[in-house]
């Protein structure tokens, strides 16, 4: 069988006013980019709770992108700065949890920057592809040994009970 290239699954949180519209514009302009980023619309990048990112990763996403209006151009004046602060904080924590930095990314795209957003997406997908699959849930799956050991214990106890 031919070796399949790994296609990462990426969740993108895009703000309603700039980056979501940039994605709309990329569509209207028929700019092609990889299909790996699945977009969730939020009103503002400031709405993106670190828990959203963690949730996506914990469910098996290979990467998460957050996109907002350019600094200084936030529809909500300055909330994208809060997104930026949280992004840095989250990255700092994720590093400590052994997660590759390139799996989350914050980008800015104004409503006019369909092309730029598409480029960001392409770059990000490439970078995540290079990192390979994340499969976070497999991280805390013990191997089969766990079940056997518990079973064995039950078995042993049952047998010893019979003896008594």
């Amino acid at each position, binding site marked *: 069988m031919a070796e399949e290239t790994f296609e990462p699954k990426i969740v993108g949180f895009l703000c309603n006013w700039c980056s979501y519209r940039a994605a709309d514009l990329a569509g209207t302009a028929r*700019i*092609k*980019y990889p299909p790996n980023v699945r977009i969730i619309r939020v009103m503002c990048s400031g709405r993106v709770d670190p828990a959203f990112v963690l949730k996506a990763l914990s469910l098996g996403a290979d990467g998460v992108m957050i996109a907002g209006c350019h600094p200084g151009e936030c529809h909500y004046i300055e909330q994208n700065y809060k997104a930026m602060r949280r992004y840095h904080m989250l990255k700092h924590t994720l590093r400590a949890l052994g997660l590759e930095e390139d799996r989350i990314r914050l980008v800015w795209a104004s409503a006019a920057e369909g*092309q730029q957003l*598409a*480029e960001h997406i*392409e770059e990000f997908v490439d970078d995540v592809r290079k990192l390979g699959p994340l499969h976070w849930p497999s991280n805390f799956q013990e191997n089969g040994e766990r079940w056997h050991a518990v079973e064995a214990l039950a078995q042993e106890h049952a047998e010893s009970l019979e003896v008594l």
Partner: protein
Amino acid sequence: MVGHTLELRGSPFLQEIIREVPGGERIVHCLQCGTCGGSCPNGADMEYTPRTILAMITANQRDKVLKANTMWFCVSCYSCVSRCPQKIPITDIMYGLKRISIREKAYQETDAPALAKTFTDLLDKYGRSFELGLASRYYLFNRPLAMLKMGPMGLSMFTRGRMSLTPTRIRNVDQLQAIIRKARELGGVS
């Protein structure tokens, strides 16, 4: 692939400069305002002002640019760079043009390449610059007549202990030369 405009567009010579000079891609931002040409202390004597050179690069006039005297008149004062409204690293572009011109021996009517060559040869050999050696070798081979005029000045420098007869050599010349050899081997910054 999403279009990467810069790498694909622009004249071949522009592409070459972009490869040769860190920051060379800023050329595409040139407004042709002439701040560089106006600021240059030698601007009045240049065949083409730096602004014109940038336009010529964009227009792919490679031969004309490499033969120009512009870059040889550049004294690395960085006035143009500091004032450029588009943050174009003009001085570094001039260095790049000098290098290409030297590599291809395209320069005309200037002794600057010889000076640079003599200077770097001495550096490679001793690890320090050696003014008397530089002056004597450079003038002897390139401008024997001018040497006569330099006499009195050289003498006054010498009597004030400002010119040494022997070069200083650094201790670890081998190490320096190994580094330089490696650089030559790697060739170029990009």
